[in-house]
């Protein structure tokens, strides 16, 4: 018996599916049916239940109530049947890092009984499709994030599964690799493979046949991207502010969210408000122009205002300028590891108070550049001054002048919010009244409750990220480095985080940020594109667009790819 799947039964059917972890309902009353060959995207804020739903479908979790049928099998009684047939890619990197590309693939084939010529054929086809042919002998941990994800996808395709479950496949993957990953997924369409994937990238959701919006375990909406966008149609406007415009009021009735782009505001109103009313509401702010809604707006509209929205962040206190100014300037800055240049002759100037975005593929040298500028790595050649302090000079002064938030927020999960703040304050040499004042200020600027007794490990990703930010700015650094601060965080929380960054920059803090979310590039005043250790282009988004000779409406991805293509 190959499959009990009858023609009539869809590959995925969930009915009244619920799953509790202790008191928390991770999933509640989910009714869902996915058709053969369909691609369904799961989106929703942190803790919405996306992973739980995927694990339930993979028969890795038994439902607390309701049931799931996958490929015609019951996930509780016939788990083995399901697990033998489907492909499932868990979040993060879950291959064997000590095994080579080939060995990982061979293991996956071996446990699935794919052998002999069939294996050789499929191996060649998959590795070619993933562009991994030249790296078959390389150990998994020596691959870039994008290659690791592509290999993981290959290991899950070796048995030609009719259903593929993918948990945040694009997480931690650079835009270029992500495009290749999606190319592989598009190739599967011809084979009628059903795909269910969780994502925090709205452009990935846009490429799905239908999108399911989850929030706190509930299914809020399930429709095609176009139909979802239609729900938010007419609620979004661009507002161009005059140079002498008065500051924005703290609260605007009827306004759902405001995105601050360098040259304009993007305003979303509550649904039901449109046309004339929008003009009346927004005209005092500047010149109003209606714009098309995207999936992110739908997200903002659907997600009920949670704990985050309630805590409005306070604008930051001005940052005292140091003796040498606050910006960054580097000349031919280089960091070599043996023959390999992780950072290769990077020259760049960032004035104080600017938000500078660093974009580039995994392994392009962004993190190494930031480590050099923080004094965590010694330059092999060249020089750099950060806030007027030479990076190869006195570390103490440099460390007092910079703040650094690493990719994996370096918080103590078993300490409470307050204890984390107190610890990082004391690590910065702050004590007594000065520590209390610094904690109060940093917490207010990050929209945190400084006395929050919850453990850092129990917070949502969005709150954890803000706590990490608060810890990084306790000592009021003049330059702040953020290394992929928004990775894996839902769009709404990403926005709120960017509002905090903007406040800090407005107060005079220079901010250098790396990101894989290309839409976030629009929040930066200037961008630097890195490839193989070199800074291949820098400037405003408009300038980069002109340099690449692209049309005025070209998106960030097109600009990014055009520059990488030119340099290659």
């Amino acid at each position: 018996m190959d499959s009990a799947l009858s023609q009539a039964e869809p590959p995925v059917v969930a009915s009244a599916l619920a799953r509790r972890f202790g008191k928390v309902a991770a999933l509640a009353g989910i009714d869902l049916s996915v058709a053969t060959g369909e691609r369904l995207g799961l989106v929703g804020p942190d803790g919405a239940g996306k992973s739980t739903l995927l694990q339930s479908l993979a028969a890795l979790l038994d439902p607390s109530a309701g049931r799931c049928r996958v490929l015609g099998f019951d996930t509780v009684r016939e788990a083995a049947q399901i697990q033998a047939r489907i492909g499932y890619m868990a979040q993060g990197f879950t291959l064997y890092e000590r095994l080579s590309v080939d060995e990982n693939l061979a293991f996956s084939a071996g446990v699935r009984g794919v052998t002999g010529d069939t294996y050789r054929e499929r191996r060649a086809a998959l590795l070619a499709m993933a562009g991994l042919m030249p790296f078959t002998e390389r150990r998994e941990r020596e691959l870039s994030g994008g290659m690791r994800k592509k290999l993981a996808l290959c290991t899950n395709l070796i048995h030609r599964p009719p259903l593929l479950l993918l948990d945040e496949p694009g997480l931690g993957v650079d835009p270029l690799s992500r495009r290749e990953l999606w190319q592989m997924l598009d190739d599967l369409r011809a084979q009628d493979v059903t795909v269910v994937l969780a994502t925090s990238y709205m452009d990935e959701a846009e490429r799905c046949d239908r999108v399911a919006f989850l929030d706190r375990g509930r299914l809020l909406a399930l429709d095609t991207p176009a139909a979802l966008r239609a729900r938010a149609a007419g609620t979004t406007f661009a507002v161009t502010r005059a140079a002498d415009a008065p500051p924005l009021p703290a609260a605007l009735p009827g306004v759902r969210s405001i995105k601050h782009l360098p040259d304009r505001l993007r305003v979303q109103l509550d649904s039901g408000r449109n046309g004339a009313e929008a003009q009346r509401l927004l005209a005092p702010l500047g010149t109003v122009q209606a714009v098309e809604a995207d999936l992110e707006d739908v997200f903002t509209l659907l997600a009920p205002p949670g704990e985050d929205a309630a805590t409005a962040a306070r604008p930051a206190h001005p940052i005292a300028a140091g003796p040498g100014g606050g910006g960054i300037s580097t000349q031919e800055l280089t960091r070599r590891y043996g023959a390999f240049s992780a950072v290769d002759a990077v020259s760049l100037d960032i004035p104080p108070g600017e938000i500078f975005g660093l974009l580039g593929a995994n392994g392009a040298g962004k993190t190494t550049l930031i480590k050099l500028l923080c004094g965590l790595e010694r330059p092999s050649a060249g020089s750099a001054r950060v806030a007027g302090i030479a990076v190869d000079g006195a570390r103490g002064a440099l460390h007092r002048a910079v703040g650094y938030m690493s990719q994996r927020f370096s918080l103590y999960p078993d300490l409470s919010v307050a204890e984390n703040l107190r610890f990082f304050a004391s690590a910065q040499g702050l004590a007594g009244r000065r520590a209390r004042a610094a904690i109060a200020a940093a917490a207010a600027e990050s929209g945190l409750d400084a006395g929050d007794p919850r453990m850092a490990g129990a917070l949502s990703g969005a709150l954890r990220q803000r706590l990490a930010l608060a810890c990084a700015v306790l000592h009021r650094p003049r330059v702040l480095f953020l290394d992929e601060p928004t990775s894996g965080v839902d769009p709404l929380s990403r926005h709120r985080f960017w509002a905090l960054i903007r406040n800090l920059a407005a107060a005079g803090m220079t901010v250098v940020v790396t990101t894989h979310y290309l839409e976030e590039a629009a929040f930066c005043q200037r961008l630097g594109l890195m490839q193989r250790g070199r800074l291949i282009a820098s400037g405003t988004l408009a300038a980069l667009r002109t340099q690449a000779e692209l049309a005025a409406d070209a998106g960030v991805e097109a600009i990014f790819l055009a520059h990488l293509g030119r340099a290659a």
Partner: protein
Amino acid sequence: MNARRIAAMLGKESREILRDPITLGVALAMPLIMLLLFGYAISLDVREAPLGVLDLDRSPLSRQLVRQFTDTEYFALAETYTDLGGVEEALRRGSVKLALVIPRGLARERQRREAPQMQILLDGTYSATANLLGGYARAIVAAADPAPPAIEVRTRVWYNPSLRSINDVVPGLFGVILMAFPPLLTALAIVREKESGSIQQVFVSPLSGPEFLIGKLLPYGLIAFLQIAMVMAVGFLWFQVPMAGSLSLLLAAGGVYVLCTVGLGLLVSTLTGSQLIAMLLALIITLMPSFLFSGFLFPIFTMPYALQLYTAIFPARYFIDLSRGVVLKGAALGDLWLNLLLLIAYTAAVFALAVWRFRKKVA
């Protein structure tokens, strides 16, 4: 059960082990280091204990008595005194473990066939040594007196006639070392996959729970078997522990015991998803009891009855009994079948429990 899938699992597991030479090196070196440490450090034998003498008699007889003490390998003359105060101070300082006090007139009373008295003072702060030294001292004094006793007692020590403690430490160590490392290695090998998430990929595949466990068990069982073979080789060849019984019986029992210890590691791995907790659990349920409640250092028959029952929970005691029986007494299967049977039953129970606890679910 599918042989192909198990083979894939075995191949993957052995490659991972071989690609991590540091862990493998530590796994093979640690038992040897432990054996050398214990082999040289744990000795219940007493050699050249410092002896203090207060000889108030100063006769040929008293001098001969002292010589008889110093002629043995057990005592070495450290200090002599002129009064009782000196003896007291030396014992308090700890510079001697045993002091002879020979009163004035010992030789004269002996000649008159009266029963003369002398005193032996012992430092009892470590009771085992004190007992041993007291026994030696009484034996030496008795030998110095040629008077025939009413009943002649001839004491012969069987199985370890030279009373070398290394001879019983080494066979005991087989049991302890195999409790110390294989469970830990096995538990970490599985929990590491839980922590990295790679186990989820294994769950969503046709590989069944028992197939996965066998794939983990065999390589680590093999490492454990290498450990026991190395420890035995060093024990017999370097420490010259005599082998009275059958090596193949010992190896066969060792094989069962290895499966048992690796199985305990599997069981621990089903209880937790954190490497740190797995390590602590392994220490608490395997290493500690194998030291304290296996009869390795502290004999079980002297324990309170409740604790004696408690020791029955831990498999180390069955194996250590068996191993000492084979190595020292030359016991055969006919004498030790109960221990072996208990070990086999124990191993089967551990596996049943591990397989039952191991489910292809993330929560």
